[in-house]
């Protein structure tokens, strides 16, 4: 994946997720890319397929007690909580920059209650420059709501149905892996009107400081992300992609173009890159370039030829 582009043949990396057109299938994952600005110094954001923002709630939230992160084998746990500036400040202070980035803006939405989800979605729908909403029914780091919404197919469908009815923006349901059967949740949100599903959010995990005999995280448990979880994510994406008609956006431990290809072969139309941004802030761009190289090397005109091309 280190080879430079061989020649400048026209390559089609674009993909569609319902009415959402992306110039390429590589998105920065929620919570790992801030509101974009921090990364503008190290890369050209317009080369990204899109940016998914940190979760936005109705009111500002401070987030969880510290320490909030701990490294684990090939992964990390985070217990950030839903720390964010709230929907009003987001629309006022963060959207102007995001609108100017030249890439798709997908806003990740969270809430404590069904009403909160609906209200945040309503307000965001009035805000110009947003291309799609990702409904986070899967955050493991909040006491109320969060995980609970995404772990039960009926509740998941109810949230998605409710937000669906108040917005024209494409609705992406972000699913939790902490369930017995993710396919049932994916099917339920599809029926409720989701335009796409994205998976996986983090796995619930824990680490203990044996000297102090205390949890490493202020929030006790946290969400596991990074290469460690890639096999779990890939299995779920593969199962979900076979079961639903709507597009599947895959993520979990993607570090390089090879990893992204695995998810796309398994059926993901696009991928999100999370923890990798912390290891190498230009990961997303490297992955875009790596996908271009792969298409050239294999003489393929469009990235769509890869999607779901796994032979089982």
């Amino acid at each position, binding site marked *: 994946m280190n080879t430079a582009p061989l020649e400048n043949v026209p390559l089609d990396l674009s993909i569609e997720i319902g009415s959402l057109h992306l110039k390429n299938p590589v998105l920065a994952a929620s*919570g*790992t*890319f*801030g509101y974009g600005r*921090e*990364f503008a*110094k*190290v890369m050209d954001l317009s080369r990204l397929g899109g940016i998914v923002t*940190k979760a936005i709630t109705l009111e500002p939230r*401070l*987030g969880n*007690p*510290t*320490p*909030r*992160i*701990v*490294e684990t*084998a*090939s*992964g*990390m746990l*985070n217990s*950030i909580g839903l*720390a964010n500036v709230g929907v009003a400040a987001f629309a006022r202070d963060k959207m102007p920059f995001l609108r100017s980035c030249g890439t798709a803006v997908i806003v990740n939405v969270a809430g404590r209650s069904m009403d909160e989800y609906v209200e945040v979605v309503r307000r965001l729908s009035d805000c110009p420059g947003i291309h799609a909403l990702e409904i986070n029914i899967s955050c493991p780091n909040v006491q109320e709501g969060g995980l609970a919404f995404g772990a039960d197919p009926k509740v998941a469908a109810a949230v998605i149905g409710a937000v669906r009815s108040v917005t024209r923006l494409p609705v992406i349901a972000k699913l939790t892996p902490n369930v017995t059967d993710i396919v049932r949740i994916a099917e339920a949100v599809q029926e409720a009107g989701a335009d796409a599903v994205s998976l996986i959010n983090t796995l619930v995990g824990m680490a203990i400081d044996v000297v*102090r005999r*205390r949890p*490493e995280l*202020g929030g006790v448990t946290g969400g596991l992300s*990074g*290469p*460690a979880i890639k096999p779990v994510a890939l299995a779920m994406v593969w199962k979900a992609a076979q079961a639903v008609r709507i597009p599947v956006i895959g993520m979990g431990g993607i*570090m390089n173009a090879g990893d992204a290809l695995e998810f796309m072969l398994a059926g993901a139309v696009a991928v999100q890159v999370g*923890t990798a*941004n*912390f*290891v*190498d*802030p*230009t990961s997303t761009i490297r992955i875009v370039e790596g996908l271009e190289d792969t298409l050239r090397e294999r003489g393929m005109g469009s990235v769509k030829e890869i999607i779901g091309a796994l032979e089982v």
Partner: protein
Amino acid sequence: MIDTKTTILHQEQIAPQIFRLRLLSPRIAREARPGQFVHLRIREGTDPLLRRPFSIHRVNRERGEVQVLYQVVGQGTRLLSRKPVGERLDVLGPLGHRFEVSEEGGGVLLVAGGIGIAPLVFLCEDLLRGHAVTALIGARSRDGILCHDSLRSGGVTVHIATDDGSLGHRGLVTDLLNAQLEAGREAVYACGPVAMLRTVSALCRAHRISCQISLESRMACGLGACLGCAVKVRSSVPPGYEYKRVCKEGPVFDAEEVIFDENLLSGH
């Protein structure tokens, strides 16, 4: 700030578990300000996965050199200490906020605990241009007292404290602080263990002397994006506190704003 491949120019052990690393990076050397840090990728692969943050200890702008002074405490620093000269090292930086230095000259005080001396040496270079500098350096024993000779030869008045009395005052470095503060100072700059910083902050407040401290926190991105490095600070709006990012609003904080609670004292 951009992502850079640097080259290891030199690495040497200067005390038990303490290493000095010299990196070639003309851009970082040029842009770096005292108090800022670099974020190092220890090795390729996924173990360890995350970068490690280190204060910028010194720079040599002519030679394009950046120095890091670090202590081996775990897997990442152990692996770093074994890197040979000539190896390339992936470095993000300079990151974070600098120590603020006032234009008016006057007497300033540095307080360092252990490896906390690292960023204060760089700060000293700035301070010595217009200030009389006194440094209080503390450690467990004489082995852990670092950089005192070079500070002295640079014109800094140095006082030393060791827990075991093997060099200087026997006891905590903060034992020396009251006398210094009573003599009056324009500003205090401190870096070291959280318990030390808490004492320094409290004494500075009592003496109404402005105090800047450099904090540590576990970091993922180092860029202000993940909110992982949060530290609790006072706020005028309910609930009376908020979080700031050590990598972005810090690592240097005004001591007044930091809340030294249990989580800060026990965690990283």
